């Protein structure tokens, strides 16, 4: 027996010798564990929209006694009588674990849990349990029971991102920990054991069941009577709405944090105690969320999607043209359900929304203008010797001769493909780069139809170059970063670069106004959006992506709708969702709200631009007998002619016969465009 006892002590001593180098040092004070300066993220209006690493440490006197009682009754009913180990609880746990041949029950006291939370991993291993126990014994020998309980209450995890009882009270009930009711205290006390499965935001029934268990334990520990328990269960829990669900700024915040971590490291962001002033306009962000919620619900109905099926997703980005400040960045319908940020992801094809880049390149390099006649007909283009490509228009409809402006307004694939074929994809890519597109772009003819992955953020940036008449302001999300003393660590400087001359861009801008006023984006006008605006729809093959990108004088916005799994968006009637039907309404709804009460601001017309009414089929200057007319904006040096039969101004313009093919007569440009600085 003596030998057995000695063996027991020797085993204990041996274990200590073996583990002593791995045992952590305890800090001087348990209060120290809660000292961390939070990093605050601000909106452009100066409001805090997110706090990182926030702790709300409180003293025991600032915690409802009901909560501490509930916690003790649930987690460690003999807390005040043990010295770190609860013999009865431990014996029970050991027997059960031996029976199960695995660690299925902890039998941990509050002190052991504190020890684990402060120092150890959450892995269930015997060695870790022994170390945890030894540190718990030291904690008991070093600190008072009140200090231990206070530290535990302040750092334990309650689910939904809440660490500490004060934070949990705010998250779940919107009140201070000292004001918790018995029912609320019991619910919170049940959470540390199962912060996800008993979370009232995730499963209210299970959370209430757990709460009832906690109340029962309080009764059996004589903290409350049965009557009090019944009364408590009759009261209203007063749960507040889930914070993440009601926060439409999460995608923006996530992207800000991601960028900062990449640039400066995680520690800087989470432990720097920073003030990060961002560009987000929370009012506009809310409008974007509303626009998405409203229209996506109607699309869901149209698609007839069931709950178990994949839901349609959407992304919205809006930029302030003058500065490049990202005012809205919505990466999906609901951050709490999907954290994938579609607003910055470049894995979706741009479709026809890429065509303005093709048209701009063509007008810059092929000497054509919005009044140039092009032929829209089936065509076979040679990709390489022996390999051909036959681009097709939407619905396989072809319009014959028409002017370039109308080709963009109708979003004709054949015309765009011919242009890229004449230009070479490399030239188009060069223009895209000048417009701020950074995603990899494939050097092939299908670039004409936007068969290349881009992000809504990039598209909004590129379109803002058009709205800005050629000036690229790099999109940015962070205005300024300060440390906790107010020292500026980073500040953004506006640096607009004139990438294209104003008079090169304006004809394209005017063509894109045509898209909104009378082209594939006219749904925007039908929805009552009155502000002068330009834009372009985009629908990719088999209706996998629907885009609408557009701009007003001050704001550029990009909207994408699609499935994450890249399946076709075809409704119950077999009709596909297009950029005009799926995305443009979101854009219009958002823009209407964003510009509500603001006066209509037109785009300034640069010097060297003139407006001419032309025949939309022949490109000749319109006269009384012209049936189909269209106003185009062209550079002053673009030569336009009257129809051959008209002799009233003969000799004023060159009277070359218009070439119905791609050759841009009667409109020619001999100008080499240089950046205007």
């Amino acid at each position: 027996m003596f030998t057995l006892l000695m063996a027991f002590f020797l085993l204990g001593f041996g274990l200590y010798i073996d583990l002593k180098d791995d045992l952590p040092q305890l800090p001087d004070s348990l209060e120290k564990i809660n000292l961390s300066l939070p990093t605050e993220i601000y909106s452009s209006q100066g409001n805090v929209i997110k706090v990182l690493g926030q702790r709300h440490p409180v003293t025991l006197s600032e915690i409802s006694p009901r909560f501490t009682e509930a916690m003790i009754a649930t987690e460690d009913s003999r807390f005040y009588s043990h010295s770190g180990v609860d013999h009865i609880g431990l014996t029970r746990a050991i027997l059960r674990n031996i029976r199960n041949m695995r660690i299925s029950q902890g039998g941990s006291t509050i002190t052991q849990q504190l020890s684990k939370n402060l120092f150890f991993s959450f892995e269930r291993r015997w060695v870790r349990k022994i170390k945890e126990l030894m540190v718990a014994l030291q904690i008991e020998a070093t600190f008072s029971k009140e200090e231990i309980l206070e530290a535990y209450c302040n750092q334990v995890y309650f689910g939904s991102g809440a660490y500490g009882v004060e934070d949990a009270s705010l998250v779940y009930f919107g009140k201070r920990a000292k004001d918790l009711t018995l029912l609320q205290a019991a619910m919170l006390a049940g959470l540390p054991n199962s912060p996800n499965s008993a979370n009232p935001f995730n499963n209210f029934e299970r959370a209430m069941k757990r709460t009832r268990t906690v109340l029962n334990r309080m009764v059996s520990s004589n903290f409350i009577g049965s009557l009090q328990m019944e009364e408590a269960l009759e009261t209203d829990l007063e749960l507040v709405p889930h914070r993440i669900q009601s926060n439409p700024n999460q995608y923006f915040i996530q992207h800000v944090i991601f960028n900062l971590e990449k640039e400066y490291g995680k520690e800087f962001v989470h432990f720097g105690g920073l003030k990060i002033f961002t560009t987000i306009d929370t009012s506009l962000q809310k409008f974007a969320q509303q626009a998405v919620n409203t229209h996506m619900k109607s699309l869901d109905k149209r698609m007839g999607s069931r709950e178990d099926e994949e839901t349609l997703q959407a992304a919205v980005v809006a930029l302030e043209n003058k500065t490049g400040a990202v005012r809205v960045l919505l990466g999906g319908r609901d951050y709490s359900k999907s954290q994938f940020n579609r607003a910055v992801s470049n894995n979706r094809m741009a479709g026809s929304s890429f065509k303005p880049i093709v048209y701009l390149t063509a007008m810059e390099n092929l000497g054509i203008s919005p009044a140039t006649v092009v032929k829209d007909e089936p065509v076979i283009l040679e990709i390489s010797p022996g390999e051909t490509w036959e681009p097709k228009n939407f619905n396989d409809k072809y319009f014959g001769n028409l002017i370039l402006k109308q080709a963009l307004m109708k979003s004709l694939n054949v015309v765009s493909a011919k242009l890229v074929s004449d230009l070479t994809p490399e030239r188009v890519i060069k223009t895209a780069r000048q417009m701020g597109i950074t995603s990899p772009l494939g050097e092939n003819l299908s670039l004409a139809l936007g068969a290349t992955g881009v992000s809504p953020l990039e598209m909004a940036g590129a379109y803002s170059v058009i709205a800005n008449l050629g000036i690229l302001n790099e999109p940015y999300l962070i205005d300024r970063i300060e440390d906790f003393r107010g020292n500026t660590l980073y500040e953004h400087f506006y640096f607009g670069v004139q990438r294209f001359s104003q008079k090169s861009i304006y004809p394209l801008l005017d063509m894109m106004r045509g898209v909104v006023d009378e082209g594939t984006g006219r749904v925007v006008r039908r929805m009552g959006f009155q502000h002068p605006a330009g834009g372009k729809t985009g629908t990719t093959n088999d209706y996998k992506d629907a885009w609408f990108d557009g701009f007003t004088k001050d704001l550029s916005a990009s909207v994408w709708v699609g499935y994450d799994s890249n399946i076709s968006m075809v409704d119950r009637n077999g009709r596909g969702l297009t950029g005009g039907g799926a995305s443009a309404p979101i854009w219009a709804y958002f823009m209407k709200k964003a510009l509500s009460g603001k006066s209509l601001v037109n785009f300034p017309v640069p010097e060297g631009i003139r407006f001419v009414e032309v025949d939309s089929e022949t490109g000749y200057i319109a006269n009384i007998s012209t049936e189909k007319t269209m106003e185009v904006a062209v550079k002053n040096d673009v030569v336009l002619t009257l129809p051959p039969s008209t002799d009233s101004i003969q000799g004023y313009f060159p009277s070359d016969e218009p070439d119905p093919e791609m050759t841009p007569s009667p409109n020619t440009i001999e100008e080499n465009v240089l950046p205007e600085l």
Partner: protein
Amino acid sequence: MKKAGILGNLNGVVFIVVLLVIFSLEIFGKVIEQGVGHYLKWENHTRPQLGRVWERDREKIVAQKKIESILSNLNTQEQSAESIQSFKELFEKLKPSDPQMVSRKKFLQLYFDFPEQLSYKMVSPYELLEIDSNRDWQRVLLTQLGEWVTISFINNQNFPIREVFLSAEGMGENPLNRDIFKGTLEEAGFSQSSILSIADFMRVMKTLDPDAQSDLFPNPHWFFSKNYHVTRVGVKEIENSDEYPPPVRMGVEYQSDFYTEVLILPVPMDISDNLLSQVEIPVYEEPTEGVPPFGDYQGDLN
């Protein structure tokens, strides 16, 4: 045998008693836990700082170090900008990857300290008055993109109130070629034969019309304001220049209370031939007739 049996039983009893005592002490006094706890507390300081709490501490330290490093870099940049002595130095520091920022005060100091009106060719002083009129001009940001240098006058929101674009190439001809050399004209590479006393140079100046005079020679106020005493002037052509005709530089030597310096200036192309022709044949004789007042040119002295 019996004694041994009794002793054996006694040992067993003592052992059980000891065991019972230990067990009671443990049950009622938690001696083992407290003993282990206090021992661990006693040797706490010898153990390593491991675990989440200490990791968090380390992360806080890493974050603070990063902040200090950023602040230190910013301070260095600020001090470096404040120590800039001339526009030449400012523009020399400017690289496409390294924009330069100076305060409004520093910019104005450099602007008005830049001898002669050439700084006015970058931005007119009247334009500066206009920029300053709204009282929100805070700083000046200089950036270079390819051939172009942008001078942005920015407000407290870092938004440019006004932007001035300069060709980096064009700037090389004028303001950037202005320099201050510590030493004499000879040490600055001017040959003895092309150096004139200030009095002789003034005679040459008087052969120029007032516009050419102000284009050529710095505003005298600059010398007076700094208590510099101009002594001599030299002229030279830049050797090994790719340009034709080679650019001409003028050196104005002056003395302060402590040292001799030469202000080296580019000579405008349209004046250089005239100037060179007069300087190459220096006039050493004392003037025999009265010299008309400066700027009041009344005819060719030669």
